């Protein structure tokens, strides 16, 4: 393991652990309000302070980590699986199928992802489930193009010719032989994708279209801090810092993996 | 015979992280003036590294750690990089296996030969161009003026190798080191290039160190054959006796394999 990868894994491991152990680590419920302690600065009782409703920021952020990381992982999972299927079909079969899939990909890429998201969220209820699916459905194009490129070069290799000569089915060639060999770059891309998805969710929440209160996500903690920014800096700083560190962490992992795999 | 090159106890290490790998240990070789010595051996036996070590154009992680290389009376291992540069390409030249990858694709063949000339000789462009044409003629290229203005990708492998030989001979070296120069070529072309090298050797009077795994070539061009095995020269003998009376077990193994599939 190289240094970059280790730093990344430590950062993400830290946040994942907190997310998993949130109920045990937090001393308050995330939605417990305390009218007597509103907008408290960080203190021994409330390590990261409280918000305008007297809720403990640290606890909210711990639970928020669960939401934000889950959204990142699942959304990227959906995008990567879609990308794998479409990209490998396009790359393997070529010709008409390739043109069809890739032109569709190009069309999807023409729309700025964020506005596509906004449009979709405007029509649907913004539940966590919907947000994950919608982010997934609007960000598979990158992985698809990447995988197609990998498959295109891999399928000319002799071991794929050898599989064909052996009578292996198309499904077998794609699933057992092509995809495992194309997975390295896809993994790197997915890691970057998680960071992007978390950022997207934060952006949506900031516009009030993301995860709906009182459920906390890093993005909507941040938006609630907007009106009190002048008097309670801690509500803005800590979730912002968490988002920044997580994205940095995933980028480090991606960079480290890239070095390990040998670049692409 | 008066020796042009005298190598004794050459030892080369590779440094891979914390690992030290000895690639060559126990390399003794003499080359007389005007002599053709073939360095034979299987892949990985250390032939190429030893040849590169003569003018120290080794990969970054390799180093000569012991031995002496006496060329024309001076120990090359005692020279600094500036003094070595004056010898590289002037007194000692190389020809490599893949001419098309050792020629720079963005310059014409003529430009590259002119560069080789002007690196070591104080000549004007016109003089260098005139000499380029002569050199191309010397390597039996039918249409020197056209070839001089061609790019490597416009020519066949055989033509590129001829051009590369012309470039190597630009400064009338005393020693030409040819590392598998015909391996990438078809047999009929190979035969022509070998003939060309022998003719040039006679007219220009250089010594030739020819590296190959192909004993047919050794039989055809060598005065003496040195057999390399696991980083060592295990046997050196005149070409007549090495085929009829091999001493070392590896030489015997090689000759018997050659008798089966190297000869018709």
């Amino acid at each position, binding site marked *: 393991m190289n240094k970059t990868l280790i730093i990344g894994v430590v950062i993400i491991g830290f946040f994942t652990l907190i997310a998993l152990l949130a109920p045990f680590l937090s001393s308050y419920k995330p939605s417990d309000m305390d009218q007597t302690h509103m907008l408290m600065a960080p203190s021994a009782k409330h390590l990261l302070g409280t918000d305008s409703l007297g809720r403990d920021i640290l606890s909210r952020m711990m639970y928020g980590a669960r939401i934000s990381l889950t959204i990142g992982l699942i959304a990227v999972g959906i995008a990567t699986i879609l990308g794998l299927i479409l990209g490998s079909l396009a790359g393997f079969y070529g010709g008409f199928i390739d043109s069809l899939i890739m032109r569709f990909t190009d069309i999807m890429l023409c729309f700025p992802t964020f506005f596509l998201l906004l449009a979709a969220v405007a029509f649907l209820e913004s539940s966590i489930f919907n947000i994950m699916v919608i982010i997934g459905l609007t960000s598979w194009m990158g992985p698809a193009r990447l995988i197609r490129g990998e498959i295109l070069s891999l399928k000319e290799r002799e071991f794929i010719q050898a599989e064909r000569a052996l*009578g292996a089915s198309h499904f077998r060639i794609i699933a057992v032989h092509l995809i495992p060999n194309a997975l390295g770059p896809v993994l790197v891309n997915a890691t970057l994708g998680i960071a992007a998805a978390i950022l997207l969710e934060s952006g949506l929440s900031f516009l009030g279209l993301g995860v709906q209160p009182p459920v906390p996500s890093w993005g909507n903690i941040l938006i609630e801090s907007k009106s009190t920014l002048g008097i309670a800096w801690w509500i803005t700083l800590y979730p912002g810092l968490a988002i920044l560190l997580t994205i940095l962490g995933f980028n480090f992992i991606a960079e480290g993996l890239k070095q390990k795999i040998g670049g692409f | 015979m008066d020796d042009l090159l005298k190598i004794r106890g050459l030892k080369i290490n590779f440094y891979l992280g914390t690992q030290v790998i000895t690639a060559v240990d126990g390399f003794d070789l003499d080359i007389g003036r005007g002599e053709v010595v073939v360095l034979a051996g299987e892949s990985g036996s250390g032939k190429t590294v030893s040849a590169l070590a003569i003018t120290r154009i080794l990969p970054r992680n390799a180093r000569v750690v012991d031995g002496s290389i006496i060329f024309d009376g001076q120990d090359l291992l005692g020279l600094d990089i500036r003094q070595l540069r004056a010898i590289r390409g002037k007194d000692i030249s190389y020809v490599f296996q893949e001419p098309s990858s050792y020629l720079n694709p963005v310059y014409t063949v003529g430009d590259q030969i002119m560069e080789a000339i002007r690196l070591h000789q104080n000549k004007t462009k016109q003089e260098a161009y005139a000499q380029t044409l002569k050199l191309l003629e010397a390597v039996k290229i039918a249409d020197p003026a056209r070839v001089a203005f061609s790019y490597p990708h416009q020519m066949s492998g055989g033509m590129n190798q001829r051009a590369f030989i012309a470039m190597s001979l630009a400064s009338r070296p005393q020693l030409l080191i040819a590392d598998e120069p015909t391996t990438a070529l078809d047999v009929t072309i190979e035969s022509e290039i070998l003939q060309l090298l022998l003719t040039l050797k006679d007219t220009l009077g250089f010594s030739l160190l020819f590296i190959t795994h192909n004993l*047919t070539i050794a039989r055809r061009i060598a005065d003496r054959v040195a057999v390399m095995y696991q980083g060592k020269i295990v046997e050196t003998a005149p070409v007549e006796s090495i085929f009829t009376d091999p001493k070392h077990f590896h030489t015997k193994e090689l000759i018997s394999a050659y008798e089966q599939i190297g000869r018709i």
Partner: protein
Amino acid sequence: MENILEVKNICKDFKVEGGALMREAGVVHALTNVSFTVKEFDSVGIAGESGSGKTTLAKIILKLILPTRGEIIFNEQLIRNLRKDVQIIFQNPYNSLNPKMRVYDAIAEPLVIHAIIPRKKIKERVCDLLQMVGLQQKMSARFPAEFSGGQRQRICIARALACEPRLLVLDEPLSSLDLIIQSQLLDLFLALKEKLKLTYVLISHNLAVIKNITHSVVVMQQGEIVENEPTTEIFSHPRHLYTQKLLAAARE
């Protein structure tokens, strides 16, 4: 002896695209009217320099690519399932094994695909195959990267043999290997042919290899057959100028 394979008037053209609009810029005739037959238990050599269309021909025989014109006819009695009964060994063993697949899985795969033997017996069969090509059983858990070129080529041979083929197409099977390894593999090919009653189509630029294995030789030049004679005849009385030139270059 019966014909196992008939190559009939095979032509293959490759379109060359070029220019900004990818217009068709020209046609390369890779193969022109190639015809020959292979008898069961025989070995036929295909000789020629690079660019003579040998590998294209191999791929057409295996139906990995389609010919522009002409036919590949297999004896239906002998070759029931092309993908099982006809196998190919490629030139570059560094490239012809899936780097992410253990040797055991690579050799077991054809047994699974063609359901050649019951699943329970696969392990035993893989061991037999490894032994047959001169590899040790304990090597089966390793990945291709841990093997030398010669060993990888043996793995490829074991894979091909797992199909219990009748016809084996060898596309320059030795040319990327060291001389001593070449000679060992050549002996292996000769022994396997006897033991398993195989038929070989051997593609090689090395006439010495061809001379060792084959009964007859097809000499190709720029996609055309210039000579097709028994091996002894080719080496003692080459008729065509090109064959003579090849022999002379190899003998010098």
